[in-house]
């Protein structure tokens, strides 16, 4: 008895575990689990759980010693403390890798855990739900086995229990199950999970809200119909309020949910824009830093990509200055690449949009990102694409001017093309072009005769009187 208790206490500290492992404690604990006294069994199981939790070789050792079938078998019969400890062991084993989870499933662990879910004691339910969550997290096959054992309706019932910890774990398990494939998400939805999750949005507990939003976003990411069902639960005005929660992960998960919903169709984006989601997201972007910004940036990009109305809505909500700030403040390449992509989606619709992008001085920045040798390939590709698509619609000449200097020729031809479209019609722009030295720079560009670039240059030169052009060429 003492031995077991000491082992359990020692195992709660990670430093001791090495020593315990060397002392071969695993094989000693195994017969103790078959002991008559229930408290010894429980403490032995607890010690095993802590050991397995620590590292995956220990967990593998647990599997190899054939402790699992024994645990599963006794799960059906014992009292609730034992069940909690046994579920803890299963969870500790399953969390390390898919193979270990497969081992747990193979010895019937899932069915036993589902039986535990039907118990009255909330601690047992929580431990069982947590173990199921870890099993389902790894891949779709394991989630399917969890669902096949009929866990989902029980988990949804757990959501309704008054204990906060149980609700949290149930929400996180549902989130892990539904993240793999649309069919699994559909199963979760069919048990009526969305309504309960939607009610829990107004709960003050921060960790619960994290899990709830994560679950909703995993459900809605798979298909349009699932996203529509999530929207029909009328979460949106309430979810926007949660964007000011003090907990940053709650905010991040809300923006992730918005992103997953928005990426499917324009109508869904319209719903979110109409309830004022844009303003809240842009304020959120201003308040947070680093990786937390990524879902918000992608959400803005997806909204703007659908139609030019929505892109105009993003611009109106002061999205473009905020994205410019993100671009300058962030140093991670993948975040910058996402920002460049979003800017491209906003600016490529009409000259109005391109003008909004150009006035925020984003074109030189995008050029810089493209030219920078340190940028990753993804960043370069995205900034080039964004730059090209915005340039093709940009008629705002003061924004285009800085781009005449030090640009590679593939960008230059677009810039010159835009000039050649606007200058023949606008006399004030022509005057400005000459006085700001643009015409001079244009003459210095060497282009192969017959190429498109040369044609554009000729077109521009023909808008001006001969003397000016020749004077500048000589100089």
């Amino acid at each position: 008895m003492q031995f077991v208790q000491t082992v359990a206490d020692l195992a709660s500290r990670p430093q001791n575990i090495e020593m315990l492992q060397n002392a071969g404690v695993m094989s000693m604990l195994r017969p103790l689990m078959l002991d008559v006294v229930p408290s010894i069994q429980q403490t032995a199981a607890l010690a095993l759980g802590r050991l397995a939790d620590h590292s995956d070789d220990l967990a593998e050792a647990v599997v190899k010693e054939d402790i699992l079938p024994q645990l599963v078998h006794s799960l059906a019969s014992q009292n609730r403390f034992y069940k909690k400890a046994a579920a803890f062991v299963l969870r500790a084993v399953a969390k390390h890798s898919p193979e270990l989870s497969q081992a747990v499933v193979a010895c019937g662990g899932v069915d036993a855990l589902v039986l535990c879910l039907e118990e009255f004691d909330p601690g047992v339910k929580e431990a069982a739900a947590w173990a199921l969550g870890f099993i389902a997290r790894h891949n779709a096959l394991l989630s399917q086995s969890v669902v096949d054992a009929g866990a989902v309706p029980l988990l949804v019932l757990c959501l309704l229990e008054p204990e906060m910890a149980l609700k949290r774990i149930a929400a996180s398990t549902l989130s892990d199950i539904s993240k793999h494939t649309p069919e699994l998400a559909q199963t979760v939805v069919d048990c009526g999970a969305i309504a309960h999750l939607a009610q829990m949005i107004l709960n003050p507990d921060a960790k619960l809200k994290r899990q709830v939003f994560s679950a909703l976003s995993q459900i809605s990411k798979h298909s349009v119909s699932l996203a529509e069902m999530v929207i029909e639960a009328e979460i949106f005005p309430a979810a926007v309020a949660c964007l000011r929660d003090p907990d940053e992960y709650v905010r991040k998960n809300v923006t992730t949910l918005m992103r997953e919903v928005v990426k499917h169709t324009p109508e869904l984006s319209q719903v979110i824009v109409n309830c004022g989601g844009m303003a809240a997201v842009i304020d959120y972007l201003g308040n947070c830093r680093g990786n937390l910004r990524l879902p918000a940036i992608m959400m803005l990009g997806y909204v703007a990509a659908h139609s030019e109305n929505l892109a105009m809505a993003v611009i109106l909500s002061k999205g473009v200055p905020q994205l410019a700030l993100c671009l300058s403040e962030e140093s991670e390449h993948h975040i910058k690449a996402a920002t460049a992509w979003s800017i491209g989606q906003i600016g490529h619709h009409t000259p109005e949009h391109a003008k909004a992008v150009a006035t925020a001085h984003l074109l030189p920045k995008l050029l810089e990102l493209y030219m920078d040798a340190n940028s990753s390939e993804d960043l370069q590709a995205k900034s080039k694409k964004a730059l090209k698509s915005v340039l093709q619609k940009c008629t705002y000449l003061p924004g285009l001017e800085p781009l005449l200097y030090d640009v590679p020729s593939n960008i230059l031809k677009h810039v010159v093309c835009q000039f050649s479209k606007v200058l023949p019609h606008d006399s004030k722009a022509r005057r400005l072009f000459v006085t700001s030295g643009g015409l001079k720079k244009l003459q210095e560009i060497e282009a192969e005769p017959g190429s498109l670039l040369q044609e554009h240059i000729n077109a521009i030169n023909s808008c001006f009187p001969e003397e000016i052009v020749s004077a500048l060429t000589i100089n």
Partner: protein
Amino acid sequence: DMAELLKIKSEAEDFQSEYFYRNSQAEEKRQKENQAATQIQSWFRACKVRAYFSHLHKKAVIIQKIWRGFTARARFRQMVKAAYFIMKMNFYEEMAVRIQRRWRGFFVRKYIHNFYARKSYLEGLFRKNELVRRELDELEELQKRERDCLEMVKEQTAKVYQAYRLHHLLSTKQCPGVFNSPFRSAPHEMEQLLRQVKYQAPTRLAPGGRACLLGMPGPAAPSFSGTLGSPWIKTTQTRCSSRPILPPIGSKKQQVRW
């Protein structure tokens, strides 16, 4: 008479020979004359027939001329009708195109790419964004204030509890307490709390029964709707009348676990 008889006989012989000669001549020429007669007759018949044909021909031409004129005029009338019809249809089409053009322009401008609707939508969106921002700010403010309230209440209860445990440090007339140093201008707030704390020896009353005592010490405590049961503070009010006090259940003396 013989002379006349000879003459008549020779005339008769001449006549016979003449007759014979003429017959033989006629016989010889019969073929030729026959042929000639046939030729003449055939030529005449040919003329007759030709005349008849030309007559027929002329009449046929007249008939054909009249017929062709008739048909041509009919066709012409038809062509005129068709041309008129086509002109009318062109005119109608032109008018229909004008109507459709106007209608399509109107329809597209009003229902599909309604500029004013879009403008008012964007303005409305802008206002809604402002509204949402303001409301969210207020909400955040409210939540923050609530959280601060709870924090303060927690702090205050902690202090009161501490005062309860340190009740013995209250200053007496003889000896000023730790918190009531003579060098201070006014007693420390702990001193105030100590004065307010009512020490109770642990009694048989279960800790939950004291929850009916109300009252909140401290000048800085904000007033809010929650009531906090501080069982150690001297009551400033009598016990709340809405909850009847149950007599203590006779139970063993309980350890008051803090």
